[in-house]
């Protein structure tokens, strides 16, 4: 049960993120929701590579009896964090611009395209 806890947490984070994206009426909160989803996915990836009692994957030839955690998911997570940074920065920039144009952050009032 304990070993599945990380997956449940990841799932919970993703669902919370999706909830925020769909139901929150504030652009900043929507961006936070996307960030939550990203964190959930990152946690999921790291949890995939975790091995009970594993050590850091830093040996070229590991000594016998030592199990290492998988390095690949960690590399994937790092890449995904980097991309997440760019995504968040871009979304915040767009939110600032939208606020400048519409003077509101409520997505239901930002309806320039729905003429």
């Amino acid at each position: 049960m304990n070993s599945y806890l990380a997956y449940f947490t990841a799932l919970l984070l993703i669902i919370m993120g999706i909830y925020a994206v769909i139901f929150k009426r504030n652009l900043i909160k929507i961006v936070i929701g996307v960030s939550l989803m990203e964190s959930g996915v990152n946690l999921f990836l790291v949890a995939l590579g975790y091995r009970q009692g594993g050590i850091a994957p830093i040996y070229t030839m590991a000594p016998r009896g030592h199990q290492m955690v998988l390095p690949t998911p960690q590399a994937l997570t790092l890449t995904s964090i980097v991309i997440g940074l760019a995504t968040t920065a871009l979304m915040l920039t767009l939110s600032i611009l939208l606020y400048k144009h519409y003077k509101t952050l409520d997505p239901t009032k930002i309806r320039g395209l729905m003429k």
Partner: protein
Amino acid sequence: MKSDMSTIVKTVTDFLFGFIIIFGIYIIIHGHLTPGGGFQGGAVVASGFALLFVAFARTFLDKKPQQLYGLFESVGLLIFISLAFLGIYRTFFYNFLANSGGLFGMKITQGINPGYFNTAGVVPLMNMAVGFEVACGLSLIVYLLYRGVIEEGEDGE
């Protein structure tokens, strides 16, 4: 809002800024040996700059550093992709310095060892290029967002 913060913040920033930058550079150049690397170290350096912007808003927001940041960012990116191109006589991204005996060319010791700095070929060089790029790019992002928000505040008032 476009003013400096209190003396306490400014003094602490004065004191910490150097250490933050040094720590970031340490992470960048040891990227091939320890956890970390270009992006993480660059982010640490950029956080130092972010601290500077917040503490000394009046001084820095008028300096308009985007020219310098942009230039260094593009230099870092160009170095990175040029290093990848240099290996094209074998394949793109070929590590032509590894195990060659020269710069970063020491052969990697098998088994348990303390980690030798002069190894891994082009990887540390690429780490440095990426670190440079991320430090400048991230500082640029922080600077522009901060300035955008402050200008918005001034418009509203």
